[in-house]
């Protein structure tokens, strides 16, 4: 804490202009203490001894939710919008257990921060929407700030990612059996509705059998096209494509039962899929987009908040808030649970394309993984019919609305 030794006058060091008015707020939380420690260390700079994970575990849970950094998002159409990232400081290991009331209180405090910052639209990332079950009207200032769960854009990125991954592997999606883990959640059910007419067969898995049956009925499909189970092990060996979208505080699903040539989209935040070692199916992190126009964070926390192999990659739920701000739409585009319809997915996807919020490049914990998806393509298909197949199944074709 020796500012003098650092040759810095504290008054000068700390004297930055007071915040300008924000247009959007991104309410979120970090999914690991290691990431939290990295953020704190970045803010701390070189002063004092390095911060440890133990330090942040002991201090951060006591911090009231607050703005962590200021964000400017640039559209490819030349426009931009300003906002803030507000962290609710939810403890990563207590996302699923622990007091729901306390977590809701933290989200409410974060919502108050969004209002104080002058946001007109606020996206609820990760568990900040899950603990509310999408009931954004529980938040203070709901009449002044439009809160969106951001789940519609997350769904759009997931289904787009799955379609492109299947195309890279030269497998038409309508021939594939798609398993959705966490199928009754807002994101999972949105994916199920969207993929109903596109995937060959849907396997829906979730913990609550009543919700599962209700979802199956709502899809108005016969059992041959939509099967349900509360046991993931029953469905994992049968899936060509797995979408993991369950609300978990830590990875839980093992891929040992999954076929090695399957494609797995881990769209959880925190991640759903356990690292089972080498040789398993190709896993990519889904539900994320890349802002082609660029993002600017002050202080620059991009590399610690979003430590991805490609630049400007952010969760779809947060990007939805930025997108609505760029459009000047202060509305709760996504709210509640289980209401995401294909038409809304197409609408938000069209906006994403308009502003250059592209699907994030394929990557996993190790780095880019597009080549492994391409390697899944049958050798014969590649050798015998690459041109015809490319014409019929273009990898980069825009998704057609239903």
């Amino acid at each position, binding site marked *: 804490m020796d500012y003098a030794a650092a040759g810095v006058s504290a008054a000068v060091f700390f004297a930055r202009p*007071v915040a300008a008015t924000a247009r959007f707020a991104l309410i979120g939380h970090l999914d690991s203490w290691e990431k939290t420690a990295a953020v704190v260390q970045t803010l701390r700079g070189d002063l004092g001894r390095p911060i440890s994970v133990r330090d942040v575990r002991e201090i951060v849970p006591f911090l009231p939710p607050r703005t962590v950094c200021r964000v400017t998002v640039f559209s490819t159409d030349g426009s931009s919008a300003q906002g803030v990232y507000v962290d609710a400081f939810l403890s990563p290991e207590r996302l699923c257990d622990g007091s729901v009331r306390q977590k809701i209180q933290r989200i409410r405090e974060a919502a108050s921060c969004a209002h104080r910052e002058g946001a007109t639209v606020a996206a609820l990332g990760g568990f900040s929407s899950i603990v509310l079950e999408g009931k954004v009207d529980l938040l203070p200032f709901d009449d002044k700030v439009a809160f969106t769960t951001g789940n519609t854009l997350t769904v759009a990125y997931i289904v787009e990612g799955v379609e492109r991954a299947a195309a890279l592997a030269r497998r038409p999606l309508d021939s594939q059996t798609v398993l959705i883990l966490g199928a009754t959640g807002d994101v999972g059910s949105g994916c199920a509705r969207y993929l109903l007419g596109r995937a060959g067969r849907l396997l829906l898995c979730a913990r609550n059998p009543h919700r599962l049956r209700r979802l199956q009925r709502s899809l108005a499909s016969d059992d041959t096209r939509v099967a349900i189970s509360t046991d993931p092990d029953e469905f994992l060996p049968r899936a060509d494509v797995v979408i993991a979208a369950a609300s978990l505080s830590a990875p839980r699903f093992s891929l040992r039962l999954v076929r090695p040539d399957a494609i797995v989209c881990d769209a959880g935040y925190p991640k759903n899929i356990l690292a089972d070692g080498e040789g398993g199916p190709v896993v990519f992190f889904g539900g994320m987009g890349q802002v082609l126009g660029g993002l600017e964070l002050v*202080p620059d926390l991009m590399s610690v908040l979003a430590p991805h192999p490609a630049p400007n990659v952010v969760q779809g739920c947060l990007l939805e808030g930025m997108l609505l701000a760029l459009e000047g739409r202060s509305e709760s585009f996504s709210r509640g649970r289980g209401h995401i319809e294909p038409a809304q997915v197409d609408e938000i996807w069209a906006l994403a394309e308009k502003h250059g919020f592209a699907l994030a490049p394929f990557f996993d914990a190790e780095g880019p993984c597009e080549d492994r998806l391409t390697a899944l393509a049958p050798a014969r298909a590649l050798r015998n019919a690459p041109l015809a197949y490319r014409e019929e199944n273009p990898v980069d074709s825009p998704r057609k609305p239903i």
Partner: protein
Amino acid sequence: MEATSIGLIEPGGEAHRVWGSILSQSATGELVGMMNFASLVDLYDDAEDKIDALEHAAREKAHARSFQRLGKEMGICVTMNVNAPYWKRIRTAFVKSAGRGDFTACLIIQELMLESFAVSMYRAVARVAPGKLGRAYKTIAAEETDHLEHAITLLQEIFRRDPVGLQQKVAAVHEDVMSVLAEMVAREDIRGDCELCGKTCIKPSLPQVSLDIVELRGGALNLYLKSLDRVGLPGDETLQWITRLPV
């Protein structure tokens, strides 16, 4: 009966030593508060303000005396040492600001920073302290809350007039004072003997009286940050200040 409940704490035991240290820290802090408010008397031009400052000083003195009396009932000799290293640094920072005639800085140190810590910690102690001791801490916490609220109201007004100026001032004072308070409540002793605990630091023994230094520090930082939020200071700035504190 009430005196008996606190008298039941076994003399010579570790819990007894812990309560002794808690009372000594509390009494010394109140004494420093008394001196700080007394210093403000010269800073004020208005006679009513001078009287108010003196009354505040008298209340802090009464708090210190209460802690001393409670210690006596428990068979504890409460130490009041304003030259104990941490408290001396805090007092020096206050005197420096008072010497410059900087009323706002003095207000920030005494009524925002010190009172945030006092209110949070007294409330925590009040929840676990037996009988009369617990009630005394609860009452004093409520009175210190009034001081904190008073400071927030004044600082909100100052912030409305000059947001950048106040932000710079709080930042500078934070560096001087909050780093000392953070060292005081760090998990381990950063600077060595605080000269109020006796031979060894009592922090590891706080669980003997159902307290925990991590919880105490967390609660104090929480109230401090919420107070800064209410004044109107931007949360991202105050977060940076907190992350730079000693741990």
